[in-house]
């Protein structure tokens, strides 16, 4: 996508107009973008410099088995808004939802973009790739998803899987997974794939990752699943505004009950926050405060986690992976030890039996030895 650039020089400082936006506004946009994803002011300057050099990186966005929710959530950002992103910061060279082209021209544009930016473009993948029966369950332009992915990924500079579907299979991979839906990282084992799970992924995580790559040509630090640590390093539980309620043992027991209305912890309603690495608790959605599941009163269902989302029953309590102390304290002296009643009974019986036995034995011995006082050394053998 090309935009019209009008350049002029004022006092030898380059002034750039893009679509009628002056430089100051442009800088504001970049600053917002940087701030929104946690990049420092110096990063913003770097981004500006990179963009002014004309180096708007190429982005190729592929869709596979997806609902397009990730793109939709990206559309609901405003700092920067998608327009600013598309026009000012990146060059979106292929996006099936947003592009105007169709048919052969679209495919040609794709191939051209790949060739022109080989080794440099950012490949963003939305949606899982079906693998069963050689991947025939999803074909675009007569190419299966597997082939298309492998072809495009071969020359990508950075690969980002946005959303749970592309990251590990998502909804299409739910049991019995009839199409063999898989995350793209499994199909690209020797490539670094940044995975941004979420259903949808939070758009600001994508923006932060992509824009950091734009500014620094470097991807953020990733965990062992390829997830950026700045967004997926903590579980929801470790970052939840309702955590104090959890620690104090204040739970909503049923939807609509008193506790639920008071905003208590939703653990007992099956919240998978303790098992889910994500940043929803701090980065809400649609830029509305508390617009995220728990904020709206619904337990987290673990949409970012492969072993949780679409697998664990919604109401089944989560496992607390790293338990921490509650709001109550241990007393200075807590009672310990257990006395089993059966054992006590047995012990008493045995002791009583032993004492009685000894007493009776004494009696018997007394009787026997007293009854036979004349047992002498010359007596006959045997019993007295």
């Amino acid at each position, binding site marked *: 996508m090309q935009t019209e650039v009008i350049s002029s020089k004022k006092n030898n400082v380059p002034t750039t107009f893009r679509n009628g936006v002056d430089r100051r506004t442009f800088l504001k946009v970049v600053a917002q973008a940087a701030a929104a994803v946690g990049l420092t002011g110096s990063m913003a300057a770097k981004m500006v410099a990179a963009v002014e050099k004309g180096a708007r990186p190429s982005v190729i966005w592929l869709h596979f088995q997806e609902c397009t929710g990730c793109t939709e959530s990206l559309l609901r950002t405003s700092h920067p808004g998608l327009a600013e992103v598309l026009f000012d910061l990146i060059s979106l060279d292929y996006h099936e939802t947003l592009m105007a082209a169709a048919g052969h021209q679209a495919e040609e544009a794709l191939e051209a973009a790949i060739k022109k930016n080989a080794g440099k473009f950012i490949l963003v993948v939305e949606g899982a790739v079906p693998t069963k029966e050689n991947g025939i369950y999803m074909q675009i332009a007569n190419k299966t998803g597997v082939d298309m992915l492998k072809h495009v990924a071969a020359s990508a500079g950075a690969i980002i899987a946005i959303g749970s579907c592309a990251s590990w299979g998502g909804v299409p991979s739910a049991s019995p997974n009839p199409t063999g839906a898989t995350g793209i990282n499994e199909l690209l084992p020797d490539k670094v794939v940044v995975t941004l799970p979420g259903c949808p992924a939070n758009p600001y995580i994508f923006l932060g990752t992509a824009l950091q790559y734009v500014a620094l040509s470097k991807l953020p630090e990733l965990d062992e699943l390829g997830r950026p640590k700045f967004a997926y390093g903590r579980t929801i539980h470790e970052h939840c505004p309702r955590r104090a309620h959890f620690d104090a043992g204040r739970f909503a027991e049923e939807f609509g009950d008193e506790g639920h209305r008071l905003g208590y912890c939703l653990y007992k309603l099956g919240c998978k926050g303790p098992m889910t690495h994500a940043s929803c608790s701090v980065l809400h959605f649609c830029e509305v405060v508390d617009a995220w599941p728990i904020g709206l009163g619904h337990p987290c269902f673990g949409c970012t986690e492969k072993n949780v989302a679409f697998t664990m029953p919604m109401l089944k309590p989560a496992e607390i992976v790293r338990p921490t102390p509650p709001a109550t304290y241990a007393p200075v002296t807590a009672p*310990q*030890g257990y*006395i089993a009643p059966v054992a006590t009974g047995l012990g008493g019986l045995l002791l009583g039996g032993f004492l009685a036995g000894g007493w009776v034995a004494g009696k*018997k*011995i007394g*009787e026997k*030895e007293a009854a036979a006082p004349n*047992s002498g050394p010359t007596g006959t*053998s045997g019993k*007295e």
Partner: protein
Amino acid sequence: MTVTWDRCIRLKEPLKTKPFLVFAALAVVGLLLGAYRELLGLGYVTGLNDGYSWGLFKNWNVTALTALGSGGYAVAVFAWIFNVKRFHPIMRTAVLTSLLGYGTGMLALGFDVGRPWNFVWLADPRTWNHYSVLWEVAVCMTSYFLLALDVENMPPFLEKMYRSGDPTKKERAMKIFNFMQKTFPFGIALAFVLPSMHQSSLGQLMYLAGPRVHPLWQTPLLGLLYLLMAYILGFTCVLLTLALSAYAWNLGWDSETMERLAQIMAWTITVWLVVRYADLAYRGALGYILRFDRFSIFFLVEELLIIVPTVLLFSKANRKAPGKLFRLTFLVCIGGLMYRFTPTTLAFSPLGDYRYFPSTFEILMSIGFTALAVAVFLYAVKTFAILPAAKGQIAAEEAMRPFDTL
């Protein structure tokens, strides 16, 4: 009229009697539970916890029952040092009870320790902490068992070897016996010194617990008191064993010997009581006796069980009557066992709020080990010439010269 035991005899009785089968069954149950403990861990088989971490196995099977098993030691002291010749025919019985008391005690200990595979380090002096009283117990008890007790119990076994008729066996038996005869004073001195050390150490163990053992029991003299009580309980064990054996198998009643035993025991108890009360008075602990809290009650029960029978045993009439002698000794035995057991458990209050009672499995295991001792005793007296008897008293195989000199 009573008999005079002057020889040792082997009982010609069938082994598989009802009592033997009962004890053997209990022993098997105990050992099976022991195997269960090895597979799962102590927490599943006992009621032990971090406050009361020593339970029945250590405090009963080792501390209390090896005191009963000090009969060989106590009787030998009087037989050999104080030259009470009457005690020679009962020596074999006495050392057998010792062997069994210690053997099953050490077996229980083997099941009780949490990491028994590290016992091998006991053989490496570099790992020894010679300041530790428990180290002393471990090394000394093991040495006693390996160097003294089994040697003391050899003669009946050598005798049986000799009786077998096989010339090589006879020769070997005589060789070993001659060596034992030559080194006897050195061996028996070991059998005096070693138990003196560890029987007193068993008491000294609880000294390290300081204020957590109630003042009615806690004293620096714990070692001395435990040692004296080892003598006392050794006497009770021998006395009661002989009485029950005489009753069960018609050995006759050697009144002189039994009275002597009881008399010596009564005097030893007197010494023990003097030391005990002098110590309590010196430490200002007498006031605790009549507080009637649970410690005071334990103390009173223990003391009454010891003092009253002892006073009665000073009367010759009581010592002469077998029934009375048995019952009074039995009461002393209970009291003495209580004394050995109490500082470790009943009078021990760990820091914190802990409750402990042995679990059912723990009780069954403890009983199993004790039953094992009884079952082996029953086996031994019918296999070897151990029990004392008078000439012609019962038809039985007699001990052989020269083996019966030891």
